[in-house]
């Protein structure tokens, strides 16, 4: 990664003073604490607009988010990140970047390896990964839980599924940082990340063609696309790009936010330690309250959303996290209620683009929290440290210093 400015480095964003007419999801105030901002925007209108990012709307209510997610006629998924630039579309990642009718066959290829049953077979390995990580720091009485724990679980789990050495996970983390965080404002970083990732996977593709196995890459190479033809290399590479980009810092963030909440909430920590059967319900509530993933759409045709006109050529910041905080949909939307019974949250999206990895993410979150609480039931934020949050499309703690054991 280069620190030197380059021609493709775009100007810094001026600080936001008028959130309702000039919102910016990369502003440091949003990154630090977006919840009051969403409340302000929701009070103003179900759909707000900013001139930044070459023009972008944001639906602020659950209803408006849902209308857009279900409307594939007026809203395209061909761009799924709201950025400063809109270059020609080159690196596709089907099915997340696909619209009907291409979407369904591309998605159906990926669904069978990610069913709940398939995840049950992966679960013992994930449990072992969590314990291997905890072994490395438990004696210290403190750690950065983001850097030492939450970050590595999804990377290693996906590497395991792909039949790739788990130690290559550090490369994955670097590419994702380039693509999802630096790439919002820096085209060169983004292209470097995509290029390196594509080269890496191309080598694995060639190797699997010679020696097929049971791993996910081999399964994709064996899969038949629409018309019964094998998938093209470009399609397989695109889907692998997707699995990495969508499957890693999302779950890393979700596990991190859950631990952040538990570090600050002794009553919830004690209850989940005493009643582990409640953990799956609590995970759903963490997914609602701290949804990590904001998606995007591009407006293709003028239409109306929740009574608000939206015009072609603009992007849409499709904030499932904001929808999940809408008090019209969730009573006590701003409270974390770990035994919430009715929870139709949209953390994994709504409609045809439901996250293909949702069963994987849920399994990883559940196992990560179970194993942590078994071995570290009592922990708190380190008052001498600082919690930092990722910027942009995926929100979660990137530094999470905690104390436990002798320091708890």
């Amino acid at each position: 990664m280069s620190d030197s400015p380059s021609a493709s480095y775009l100007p810094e964003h001026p600080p936001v003073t008028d959130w309702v007419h000039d919102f910016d999801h990369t502003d440091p105030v949003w990154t630090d604490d977006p919840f009051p901002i969403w409340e302000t925007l929701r009070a103003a209108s179900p759909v707000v607009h900013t001139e930044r990012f070459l023009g972008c709307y944001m639906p602020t209510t659950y209803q408006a988010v849902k209308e857009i997610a279900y409307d594939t006629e007026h809203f395209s998924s061909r761009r799924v990140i709201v950025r400063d630039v809109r270059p020609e579309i080159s690196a596709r990642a089907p099915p997340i970047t696909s619209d009907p009718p291409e979407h369904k066959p591309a998605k159906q290829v990926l669904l069978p390896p990610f069913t709940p049953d398939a995840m049950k077979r992966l679960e013992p390995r994930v449990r072992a990964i969590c314990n291997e990580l905890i072994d490395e720091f438990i004696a210290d009485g403190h750690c950065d839980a983001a850097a030492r724990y939450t970050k590595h679980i999804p990377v290693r789990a996906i590497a395991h599924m792909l039949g790739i050495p788990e130690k290559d996970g550090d490369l994955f983390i670097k590419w994702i940082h380039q693509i999802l965080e630096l790439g919002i404002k820096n085209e060169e970083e983004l292209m470097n990340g995509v290029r390196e990732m594509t080269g890496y996977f191309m080598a694995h593709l060639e190797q699997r063609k010679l020696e097929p196995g049971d791993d996910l890459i081999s399964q994709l190479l064996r899969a038949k696309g629409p018309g019964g033809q094998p998938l093209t290399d470009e399609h397989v590479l695109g889907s692998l790009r997707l699995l990495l980009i969508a499957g890693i810092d999302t779950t890393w963030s979700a596990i991190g936010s859950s631990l952040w909440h538990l570090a600050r909430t002794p009553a919830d920590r004690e209850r989940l330690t005493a009643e582990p059967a409640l953990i799956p319900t609590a995970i759903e509530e963490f997914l609602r309250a701290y949804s990590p993933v904001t998606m995007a759409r591009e407006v293709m045709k003028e239409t109306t959303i929740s009574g608000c006109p939206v015009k072609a050529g603009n992007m849409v910041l499709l904030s499932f996290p904001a929808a999940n905080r809408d008090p019209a949909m969730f009573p006590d939307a701003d409270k974390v209620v770990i035994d919430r019974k009715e929870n139709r949250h949209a953390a994994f999206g709504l409609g045809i683009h439901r996250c293909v990895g949702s069963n994987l993410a849920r399994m990883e979150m559940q196992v990560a929290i179970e194993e942590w609480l078994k071995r570290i039931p009592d922990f708190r934020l380190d008052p001498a440290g600082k919690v930092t949050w990722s910027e942009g499309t995926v929100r979660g703690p990137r530094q999470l210093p905690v104390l436990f054991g002798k320091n708890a």
Partner: protein
Amino acid sequence: MSKLKIRVDQDKCQGHARCKSLAPELFELDEYGNAHEVGDGTVPAGLEDKAWLAQTNCPEIAIEVTEE
């Protein structure tokens, strides 16, 4: 007491699998992870609460519960 019957609307289900997780006795998943009601959807006595729990947690509102 009236009997409950459940049905998963195949046009609405997107495979979130919340129903299978909350009421495994009442729902099954196909190879793509999309849900179907078990059998003809009749809810056995004692599982009524689970049927409603599944219904109220489906993000796509794809589960219909009817009282016969």
